[in-house]
């Protein structure tokens, strides 16, 4: 009997002990040091455009931009975004950016890699389809525009509070823009219609000289509702060793932003604007003769272009009605002036109105009407103004 009792006791002890070993007291959950996130955005829609008697109506999309964010500890971040879309019937994959950042101190971050450049604010802050209140970029701001989207290089950025104001800064060095001379490296005609334009994809520095730039933004009010910014970017743009080796360019931008929930109008008022100016040193380009027996012709022009937009929107966020709250109305005016005498000379203006509905904070339906008039440029007969009306129904979504 004693034996049985002792054996039972030992058994119970062993079992309890081993049980206790298997289930230690639960510890509070601590997230791991490294975090990885996939976010991004997409959009699809219907575009309808009418130029004179010519009508173009097509479903577009889907553009799909996955964004990868990797965080290690409190100071190290890597971000990269790809852009999948169809271009001329083929899948096009864009490599929008890929860069690493390290927080040096409370007010300063260093970044390196391919990054969106803070030249003004449109590209860095407003171009994603779920942020942009319209179906497209303002004139001169999209692909083939006069302002850089991204650059490969190194940047210091941050913010400094000064009393109740805040100053945002960024300075960077990149491979710099590249001058399109209309010819390839062997001197054959390549894109003669684009001679004098700047290209901003400079993956391997074409001239060893770096492009330098920066932006200074000021938030003068304590409530951060207003921001005024000035940007500059420039450097040598011609190919090393070519006759364009000494050609340089200087770009300037000023931007403005006002965003505030104004109780007098029971909603958010959002006003944004940016003006870009591009000055490229004057150079001589060659125009291929129409008839191969005729000599090609050299020409030059004052290479200065500008593009700007101003937009205002209103969303009745304080409306009593839940559906009303999610509507937004927006207006945008934009203009693009390419240099006189260039093959790509043009003056265009555009206005757009939009009615948007937010399904959630980053999913929205955008219905917009856009009216564009263009003088000069590809496919526009000399001296004529071409008027295009467009209706866009887009569904944009951030995830």
């Amino acid at each position: 009997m004693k034996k049985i009792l002792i054996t039972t006791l030992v058994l119970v002890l062993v079992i309890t002990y081993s049980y206790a070993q298997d289930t230690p007291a639960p510890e509070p959950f601590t997230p791991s040091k490294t975090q990885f996130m996939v976010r991004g955005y997409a959009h699809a829609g219907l575009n309808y455009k009418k130029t004179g008697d010519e009508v173009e109506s097509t479903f577009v999309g889907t553009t799909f931009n996955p964004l990868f964010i990797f965080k290690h500890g409190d100071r190290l971040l890597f971000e990269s975004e790809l852009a999948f879309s169809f271009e001329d019937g083929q899948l096009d994959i864009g490599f929008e950016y890929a860069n690493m950042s390290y927080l040096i101190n409370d007010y300063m971050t260093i970044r390196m890699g391919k990054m969106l450049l803070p030249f003004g604010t449109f590209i860095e802050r407003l171009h994603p389809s779920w942020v942009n209140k319209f179906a497209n970029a303002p004139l001169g701001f999209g692909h083939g525009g006069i302002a850089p989207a991204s650059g490969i290089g190194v940047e210091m950025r941050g913010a400094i509070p000064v009393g109740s104001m805040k100053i945002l800064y960024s300075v960077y060095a990149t491979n710099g823009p590249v001058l399109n001379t209309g010819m390839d490296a062997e001197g054959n005609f390549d894109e003669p219609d684009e001679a004098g334009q700047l290209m901003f994809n400079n993956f391997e520095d074409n001239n060893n000289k770096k492009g330098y730039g920066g932006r200074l933004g000021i938030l003068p009010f304590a409530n951060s509702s207003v921001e005024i910014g000035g940007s500059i970017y420039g450097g040598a743009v011609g190919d090393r060793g070519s006759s364009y080796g000494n050609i340089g360019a200087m770009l300037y931008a000023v931007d403005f932003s006002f965003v505030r929930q104004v109780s007098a109008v029971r909603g958010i008022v959002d006003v944004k604007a940016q003006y870009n100016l591009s000055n490229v040193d004057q150079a001589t380009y060659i125009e291929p003769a129409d008839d191969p027996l005729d000599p090609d012709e050299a020409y030059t022009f004052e290479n200065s272009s500008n593009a700007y937009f101003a937009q205002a929107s209103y969303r009745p966020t304080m409306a009593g009605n839940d559906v009303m709250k999610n509507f937004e109305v927006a207006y945008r005016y934009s203009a693009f002036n390419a240099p006189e005498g260039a093959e790509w000379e043009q003056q265009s203006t555009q206005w757009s109105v939009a009615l948007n509905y937010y399904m959630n904070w980053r999913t929205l339906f955008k219905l917009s009407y856009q009216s564009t008039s263009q003088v000069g440029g590809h496919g526009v007969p000399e001296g004529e103004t071409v008027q295009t009306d467009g209706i866009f129904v887009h569904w944009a979504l951030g995830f």
Partner: protein
Amino acid sequence: MKNIKTLFVFLLPLAVGLILASSCASSKITMKSGAQLWGENCVRCHATPSPSAYNDIDWETIGLHMRIRANLTAEETNKIVEFLQSAN
């Protein structure tokens, strides 16, 4: 000529900003709550996400991402992230 333009681009916003700021009642970042900083900052570029949009860990990552993208200071970011984590 170019240098003058360059100066102009930088100094004009600075001057306008300073004039506007000097005529405005002030309260410093240190005196503001995370909720207030969230309300003022996260609406400047896109619609404001509500705290419930993400979990605590995601807010840490997003906080760092936005700190860099939106040029926020450490204090602003920490206060905003703490608020979002406490209210989600």
